[in-house]
């Protein structure tokens, strides 16, 4: 079941975007207001509730003892999951995660992992035997477009306030060792127009989507192109430029 959009509305959103304004009054390069509330859930080792416009995502991090992967015996483990719960949209259904949710979780995971965000070596207790596992669970509460970025900002914000519960094994709790701050920015392409941080309506009529995660040095750490449409090399370069520009303010908010 997908949401219906009238032709009239489709035409209108496109014409607006083409003229340099958007239905919510933003410019094509503008990200919606972002608020981050950290340490929202006391039963989690780290958590953040993120509102990107009307999109509302709650992320909790649980840090638990576990066994390392055989190929990385001295590294902690990151496990990322996203749930598009039916509370958030009339078009989300209960049941096991569908491809949409899995894609979001994997794109967020890549952004964090490939940027070496977490110093996994510091999560090793006994090589080959015992390490800390970080479960990052992204819970979408209200959907109004661009879950990729909202979930990613939520995950990063929650990780930055996560405490490793080392007191469970007779040591002192310590903050999760964060080394980098990747920030993802998603663009939607509507016919020939590109907008950043698409809202729900823009996302519905988008032909193509591109998510770019960049780090504090201005380097690219993860990318994901989605939907049926295509991007040219020039368009990709432009999106990278826009992503870099937008990411600085967002990074400051995530670090705060």
């Amino acid at each position, binding site marked *: 079941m997908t949401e219906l959009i009238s032709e009239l509305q489709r035409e209108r959103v496109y014409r607006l975007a083409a003229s340099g304004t958007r239905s919510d009054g933003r410019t094509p390069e503008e990200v919606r207001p972002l608020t981050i509330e950290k340490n*929202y859930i006391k039963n989690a080792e780290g958590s953040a509730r993120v509102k990107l416009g009307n999109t509302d995502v709650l992320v909790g991090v649980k840090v638990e003892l576990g066994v390392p992967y055989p190929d990385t015996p001295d590294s902690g483990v990151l496990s990322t*999951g996203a749930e598009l719960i039916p*509370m958030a949209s*009339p078009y989300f259904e*209960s049941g096991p995660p569908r491809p949409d949710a899995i894609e979001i979780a994997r794109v967020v995971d890549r952004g964090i992992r490939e940027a070496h965000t977490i110093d996994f070596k510091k999560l090793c207790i006994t090589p080959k035997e015992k390490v800390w596992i970080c*479960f990052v669970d992204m819970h979408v509460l209200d959907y*109004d477009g661009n879950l990729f970025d909202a979930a990613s900002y939520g995950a990063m914000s929650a990780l930055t306030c996560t405490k490793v519960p080392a007191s469970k094994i007779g040591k002192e709790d310590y903050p999760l060792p964060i080394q980098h701050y990747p920030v993802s920015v998603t663009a939607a392409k509507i016919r020939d127009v590109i907008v950043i941080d698409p809202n729900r309506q823009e996302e519905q009529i988008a032909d193509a989507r591109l998510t770019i995660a960049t780090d504090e040095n201005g380097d690219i750490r993860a990318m994901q192109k989605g939907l049926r449409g295509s991007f040219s090399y020039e368009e990709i370069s432009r999106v990278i430029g826009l992503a870099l520009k937008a990411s600085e303010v967002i990074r400051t908010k995530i670090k705060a």
Partner: protein
Amino acid sequence: MEDVEHIEKKMKLIDENGLRLDGRKPEDMRPIRMEVGVLKRADGSAYIEWGGNKVLAAVYGPREAHPRHLQDPTKALVQCRYNMAPFSVTERKRPGPDRRSVEISKVISEAFDSVVFSEQFPRASVDIFIEILQADAGTRCAGLTAASIALADAGIPMRDLVASCAVGKIDGVVCLDLRKEEDNYGDADMPVAMIPRTGEVLLLQMDGHLTLDEFDKAFGMVKDAIGGIYEMQKDALRKRYAVTAEEFSDLPEQAPPERRAPPEREAPPEMPPEDGEVPQ
């Protein structure tokens, strides 16, 4: 009740002054705060903080029931999904429904089915979603209480609001509204949901051990508590809609007619059609 193994009690739950771990007296409830209309997308929503519980409830509908073979041609399905976020509990919970949440979803659905005027919406469903964001015992009561005002917020016709609270026994004393440690190490827990106006009990569960006298005492206690929660629910709804009511106050007296007068159809052909409709 939160599926924690029942560990032999070692902890002293009531001190020599008769006070509980958090300083409450047996008949005291934890602080409760509720807010209506907290989500944009849902037709109705509410948030409740109840002691250490943080719970969101959302309502969608009435909407066409899916899949179609589930549709009832005589009434709407009232279905609730109670779900715990993986990070809501101390030990991470695997995402998705387990047997406990399926059972809770069922008994809550049944409680609401008895108050919603479901026969007004044949073939439809009224879907209630309860998400436990942070759990500290009594989550089903908090969820039910929030869902009830979310239903009203969604404009669903109902016989009444449903309010809920748990009562239990710790260290041999009947106490209201157990928190997690009390639930884990206590002697009994009994969540109850009622229609406060009529005294009808719509949800009742109990585990542990109560004498008949203790049950009577517990029931009286929880009934009073539910009356108080009912007042809080009404306040939360009034607070949310106070301004809206004022907004209607400069409109002419507009009793909902049993059938609206037919719109004027004798407009001249050239009259531009943009004059919306004017209520009488």
